[in-house]
């Protein structure tokens, strides 16, 4: 199948006062790929994600997602496009007044006319698919541990069976077992659902285990993108120290061994 561009970013510029975060940034995301976005703290990874999903309006540029110009389309078109995407925020961002099951049901309740019984069954399925125990559905976000909150956030992001999944630091704060379980969850969902995943992370193990392509944000643009192996041969000092540091070696050794 011909690789189809699902997200196309052209000339994106983001400015906060005098600080320029992105300057003429361009990036393409293909259907079915897992794209990892890395960069130093403050290099605008989260700002990029927030621009794509429409949480903030960039100073200039064009973003096309699933054929919709997210910056200029009508509110209805934008809502239709965002119904085909799911976002998992860093700490889950669950609605604290709702139980986990109600959180997962919330997008279906808003966007689709599904009867309550099906909705409940599908929510339970999502909860189980992300690896939460069935009884977690009745718990409230305040009762969950950090890892469970992330999984519940993922279950909610998957609620509408999205085509594109945005993950913001999915493994930050997870124990290594939980983190690698999360990695294999992402990989298996990509294989079964044909998901496109836009992944912002610092976790080299996650990058190694899940990503087809890695985009490095630096100097206010996408400095370079490619596979892990390709990026290891880039001789930019920051990229080099990122992919050749002791942690990178450990991640690579773990993947090889």
């Amino acid at each position, binding site marked *: 199948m011909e690789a189809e561009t699902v997200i196309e970013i052209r000339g994106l510029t983001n400015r906060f006062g005098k600080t320029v975060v992105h300057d003429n940034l361009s990036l393409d995301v293909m259907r079915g790929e897992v794209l990892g976005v890395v960069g130093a703290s403050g290099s605008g990874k989260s700002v990029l994600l927030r621009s794509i999903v429409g949480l903030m309006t960039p100073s200039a540029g064009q973003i096309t997602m699933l054929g919709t110009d997210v910056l200029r389309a009508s509110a209805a078109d934008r809502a239709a496009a965002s119904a085909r995407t799911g976002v998992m925020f860093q700490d889950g961002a669950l609605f604290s007044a709702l139980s986990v099951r109600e959180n997962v049901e919330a997008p279906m309740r808003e966007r689709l006319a599904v009867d309550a019984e099906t909705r409940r*069954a599908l929510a339970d399925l999502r909860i189980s*698919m992300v690896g939460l125990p069935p009884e977690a559905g009745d718990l409230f976000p305040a009762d969950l541990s950090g890892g469970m909150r992330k999984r519940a956030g993922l279950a909610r992001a998957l609620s509408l069976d999205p085509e594109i999944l945005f993950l913001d630091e999915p493994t930050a704060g997870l124990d290594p077992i939980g983190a690698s379980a999360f990695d294999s969850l992402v990989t298996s969902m990509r294989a079964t*659902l044909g998901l496109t995943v836009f992944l912002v992370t610092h976790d080299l193990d996650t990058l190694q285990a899940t990503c087809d392509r890695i985009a490095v944000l630096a100097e206010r643009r996408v400095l370079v993108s490619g596979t892990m192996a390709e990026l290891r041969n880039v001789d930019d000092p920051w990229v080099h120290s990122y992919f050749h540091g002791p942690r990178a070696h450990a991640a690579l050794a773990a993947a090889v061994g």
Partner: protein
Amino acid sequence: MAETIPASPLNLSGPVILSTLDEVRARLDRAAAGAPVDLSAVNRLDTAGAWLLGSTGRPVTGADEAQSLLMRKVQDAMPVVDESAARARWRATDMLAGVGLAVQGFIAATAHSLGFVGLVMARLAATLAKPRRLRLTAMVHHMQAVGLNAVPIVALMGFLVGVVLAFQGAAQLRQFGAEVFVVDLIAVSILRELGILLTAIIVAGRSASAFTAAIGSMKMREEIDAMRVLGLDPIELLVLPRLLALMIMLPILGLVADLSGLFGGGLMAWVELGISPSQFRTQLLADVDATQALVGLSKAPVFAAIIALVGCQQGLMVKGDAESLGMRTSRAVVIAIFLVIVVDALFSVFFAVWGV
């Protein structure tokens, strides 16, 4: 599955996804029981579709590799329905238990509040022994927030109360030709009671809620825990500056309310009854002495302590979720206003017994 007559397969086509779930389900329901489902013409299948196919228990044919992988994943993830979980039934004794729990909760909350008051008192005494420990900057900041910034609303409220009293009083007193006593009516009621009571109610609404929300959101972001592990005392850092700021500012706000109330009352008396400002002054000085104002203002520090303590305590009781922040904030205002009115009634009895 032992099928004697092979039923003709049901050929599904197009997308089998969440948004087409109802159509697909209708087709499946119409098909013969046990008929296999053929997916050769299905171009999209998502977890909702796989769930539907899996839950019918029909054999599935013609699925491509990704589709069968998805169906296996979904099948594995399908929660086991636990039918044995019996629903708890309502019993008559539940109501009794509810009453008991409410009483127990009330007693526990009262004990907790008393403990909190004691703790703050102890910290206050420690701070008075070592005045350098007092966070002066924080206190001045709160004095501005709860005091200075509240002056316009308190002055307007006092003025309007004075106007209303003069207006209503005039209508009644005119029947007896005792118009001039409207001055006494305004002065006594505003200076003794209404000025400070209504100021306290406004401040409770403004500041008790602000204290709860500020401290509560700190609690939610673990700032209070961070203070504790750093050896900083949240009572000393957060509660005492607010408490002292409010105890200093509420009497001043009460005085503002008293003065603007007298001004509003005097203005209305002039307009409505023709009592000139100089006549108003003479009558005021002849019949009302400073004791009336002092009786009123003497209640202010007590009201201030109630408002600040309730606001801060409710803030510290906030749990991790946004719901509890909202609940505590509204509870802080209700409890503060309620206690202010109760204590005001106790003051009335006290002053009556002492004949002040």
